[in-house]
């Protein structure tokens, strides 16, 4: 089978049909990952007893096991565990399980990004804020977070792109995202035209990543303006 222009267009069209699902996975997971990241970073920065130790174990586990293992544990493990207590979540949509997994996974990485960027701003600035009479919350909102956010942005952008590519794993448990559609097309064609389809999907992911990168650098630049200093 030779690939004409029409075939390419129809193939990319089929894959793009699944784009909303991939983006939904990306944004919903990213939202919860940021929430988790902030909470965990706070717990670790403040060294809250017990929670601090639990957070450390969670981080260690999440960052040291393959994502596909975590996906299986969440998809197969948690429902069975809850069944013991008489709670049946087996019939929840797979979207939920996938979002839980990706949020926990990316949240762990983001918490480290947030923590390190907070530390990068430095305690002396917090003390300086106190010395002019700010409360802790004021210091956070007006001094620490705006600077930490700027430091965190490039790394957080990296993890967003990483998360986008991770969403391709959703097909492991049968969610037909873009990658799933690709594998269906290959399977339905008995593996004929595999190379062309992989080229197409690579381009699609690449373009999405370029858009994400562009958005991040836009935010970065607008922050740069607010952060005008004498040296630049």
């Amino acid at each position, binding site marked *: 089978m030779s690939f004409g222009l029409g075939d390419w267009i129809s193939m990319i069209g089929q894959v793009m049909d699944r784009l909303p699902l991939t983006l939904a996975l990306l944004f919903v997971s990213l939202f919860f990952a940021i929430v988790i990241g902030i909470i965990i970073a706070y717990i670790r920065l403040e060294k809250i007893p017990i929670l601090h130790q639990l957070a450390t174990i969670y981080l260690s586990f999440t960052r040291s096991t393959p994502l596909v293992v975590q996906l299986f544990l969440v998809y*197969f493990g948690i429902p069975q*565990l809850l069944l013991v207590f008489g709670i049946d979540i087996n019939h929840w949509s797979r979207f939920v399980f996938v979002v839980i997994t990706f949020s926990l996974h990316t949240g762990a990485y983001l918490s480290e990004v947030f923590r390190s960027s907070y530390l990068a701003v430095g305690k002396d600035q917090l003390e300086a804020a106190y010395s002019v009479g700010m409360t802790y919350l004021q210091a956070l909102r007006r001094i620490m977070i705006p600077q930490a956010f700027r430091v965190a942005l490039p790394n957080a952008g990296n993890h967003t792109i990483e998360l986008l590519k991770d969403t391709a794993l959703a097909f492991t448990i049968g969610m037909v995202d873009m990658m799933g559609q690709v594998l269906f097309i290959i399977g339905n064609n008995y*593996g004929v035209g595999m190379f062309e389809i992989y080229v197409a999907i690579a381009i699609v992911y690449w373009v999405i990543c370029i858009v994400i990168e562009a958005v991040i650098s836009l935010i970065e630049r607008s922050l740069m303006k607010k952060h005008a200093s004498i040296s630049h």
Partner: protein
Amino acid sequence: MKIMRFLFVIAVSITWLAGCSKATTEDGKEIIQVAVSAEVNPPFLLADENNEPIGYDIDYLNEVEKRLPQYEFEYVWGEEESNLIGVGAGKFDFAMNWFFSNPEREERFLYPETPYGYSITGLIVHEDTDDIHSLDDMTERELAPVAASGGLRSILNEYNENNDPDIPLITVGSPSNENNLRRVESGRSDAAFLNITTFHAIQEHLHLDLKVGAVVSREPVYAVFHPDHHQLAEDINRVTEELIEDGTLPALAEKWFGVDFFQDLEDISPEDFG
């Protein structure tokens, strides 16, 4: 696939306490979760334009469903290894996709007695090759790359365990049928081992200078059940026997494969697939 086995152990050990919950529809039918393999394998199983499963497997299950009014099947896509973990963990009631039977799987899962179909495997060779008639002829030749696990691989593994010398195997993650066939056509490999129906379907697109050199085996294929689902497996087994006897399944085989594989292997020659 050692990692997968390891995952399986983890999943099972986490879930050993769990029982199976029974969900029912509004009119009292028991909902049966059927895991279908996302690595589609037409004409057994493929996805239609709405990504719904279709194929011989689904036609068969629809017939079964008609005759077992107490059940309603709900299809769930998932990758094959993941589906098998899910069946083991009780998340799915059974898994569907031309599963061959092998001792390892029989330990873990419940197999019904009667296969619902057969997969006819064969060696695909170049038009001009006349000296490959069975797996025995492959020990000195090069076979196109094969996957590390799965039904086709287990046939080759079994051959190598029982015979000496071995067939030399090249293992890759997910071999492409198209590439393999092109390898055979160009002479880089001497033969490719695959489903004969798959070969003919590909040939309709590619028209390569290839032919079926040998029919290797007629492998029975089964649905694979959670070990505790005796009642369900028995019910389906009984209906399967009925469907074969009254000609429903042979007719479906003709429809999807163009050959009635319920005949004896001796009656099926490479020419039948003309």
